[in-house]
């Protein structure tokens, strides 16, 4: 089974983001890190691969300025076999649909049986890419998985819902999006880190995939988020819990 995992390199969240003053795009440093939410997808892929043995492979798929490829190396060090990097200046500022077209074309080219992604990226937060990719590829989308099983050639997941979860099955090929907490991502091993550099990273452009990028999205302004207001302080006179219940009722939590 060929498993392809979407991973995104993002600026280190521990360092303040900077925006380009003209385009308002995030200024991407040479060294970017693996989006934390993608580590879950990589772990699910590696676990499925371990279960399936030698017949399975795990390839990373990323669309971003490559820079030092540190984020991709981080995922390779976890154990993925190789990576495909779509690096193309014409894709700068690509919206979710353009991104989905590129990823779908790359996954198809890689003959992916299963494409795994996080539910949304930490820098963009559009949250629609996995579903769009599935639609473009014409395969089932199994989304918001909190548990994943490979049973009789099918994928069975527990799909997180507001009320609990649904059990959903889908035939392969398919697109799977996983929530944080679906598995405990492994640490990149020191040995894996040393080996990561010798793993293949294929660099492609939009043209290589036969996709013409139409970036029509423009950020017209960026406003600062209003600071959070200080909360109410309730002195507990022995019946403070009643005030807490009142507050929860006010915001309709209970």
């Amino acid at each position, binding site marked *: 089974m060929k498993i392809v995992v979407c991973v995104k390199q993002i600026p280190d969240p521990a360092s303040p983001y900077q925006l380009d003053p003209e385009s308002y795009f995030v200024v991407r440093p040479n*060294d970017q*890190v693996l989006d934390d939410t993608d580590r879950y997808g990589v772990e699910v892929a590696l676990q499925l691969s371990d279960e399936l043995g030698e017949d399975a492979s795990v390839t990373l798929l990323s669309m971003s300025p490559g820079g*030092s*490829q*540190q984020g991709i*190396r*981080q995922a390779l*060090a976890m154990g993925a076999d190789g990576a495909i990097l779509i690096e193309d200046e014409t894709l700068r500022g690509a919206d979710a649909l353009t991104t989905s077209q590129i990823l779908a074309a790359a996954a198809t080219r890689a003959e992916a049986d299963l494409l795994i992604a996080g539910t949304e990226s930490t820098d963009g937060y559009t949250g629609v890419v996995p579903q769009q990719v599935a639609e473009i590829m014409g395969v089932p989308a199994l989304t918001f998985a909190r548990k994943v099983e490979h049973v009789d050639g099918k994928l069975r997941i527990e799909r997180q819902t507001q009320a609990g979860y649904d059990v959903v099955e889908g035939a392969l090929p398919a697109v799977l999006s996983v929530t944080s907490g679906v598995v405990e991502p*492994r*640490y*990149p*091993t*020191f*040995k*894996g*880190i*040393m080996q*990561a*550099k010798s793993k293949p990273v294929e660099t492609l452009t939009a043209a290589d995939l036969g996709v013409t990028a139409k970036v029509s999205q423009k950020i017209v302004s960026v406003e600062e988020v209003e600071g959070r207001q200080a909360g109410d302080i309730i002195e507990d006179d022995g019946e403070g819990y009643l005030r807490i219940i009142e507050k929860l009722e006010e915001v309709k939590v209970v």
Partner: protein
Amino acid sequence: MNFDLTSEQKLIVQTTREFVKKELLPHEAEVEKNDHVPDGLVESIKAKAIAAGIYAPNMPEEYGGGGLDSFTMALVERELGAAGYALNYIIARPSNILMACEGDQIERYLIPTITGERYDCLAMSEPDAGSDVRGMKCTAVRDGDEYVINGTKHFISHADMADYVILFAATGEEETARGPKKRITAFLVDMGTPGFELVPGYNAVSNKGYHNSILNFDDCRIPAGNVLGEEHKGFDVANEWLGATRLQVAAICLGRARRAIELATEWAASREQFGQKIGKFQGVSFKLADMQTQYDAAELLTFRAAWKDSEGTMTDSDAAMAKVFATEMCQFVTDEAIQIYGGMGLMDDLPLEMFWRDTRVDRIWDGTSEIQRHIISRAMLRPLGG
């Protein structure tokens, strides 16, 4: 000399930092309070470290270790140093001296220590032989195919966790220009060997949960095959492999000092007195500047020594300068961080007083500051006949 990190080194730093933050630091307060690592936690952290491939990172890859060079190890030790010894030493860095293992010692001691099946400790200090190592009274006398060991070792770190001890004992005397001196031999001695008793050591102010022990040997017999290296050549073995421990102490001080600086900086930027942030007062801001300057200097000295060690060109003086400067830097930085916090800095609600206590021993163990200065000055004066 280039301290730009490779992409691999950046990832190793990132992984170790994350492991420390996620697996070690959440247990810090409990270990400190109880002077004990909770039952089961050692095994749990150890299993995760082995799975993450960060266990025994200093040992050769061919035996199952991480195969990291000295410079990369200094980076790892700096990250591990953010946690106290009780927690960071669960991720074993077996004594490099074990690389002197030969024959079946490799299978019995070296490899199991790298894979986490066995745990080592090293015994040099004695009640009457601290810095004066050659004054040791613990003896090993050859008797047929065995050695008979008698004497006492103390201040033996993590012996309570260990399965065996790398023991240094006197095996005779030799005549030198300065009179007779003891010949020292290194041995591998299993815990539980008849005549070998391990008793709890002293209650130290530093490193709660990371204990020292006293080792008593009373006609303890071990096979002659348990000599590590060659008979009477214990100092040669030690000199070849133990320089790395001074770099380890220096690098661990960097990790601890960095946490103290982060806490002090955050406090200076947020605490208000007399209508402004205390960082606006020169009395506080200059402290921060001195702390950071001292830190950077210590890091550069440590990196220089580690880089030279990786290249095989490190001198005793290089390691000594890194050790004395980094340990004294850490004492200065943790003390100043407490001063910036004022009274709150001394309360155990914050880890600063713990850092302050923990780092006190760093100026003493693995060669006191005075011994390090002796090594440095000797290298300066000897060429002039001094």
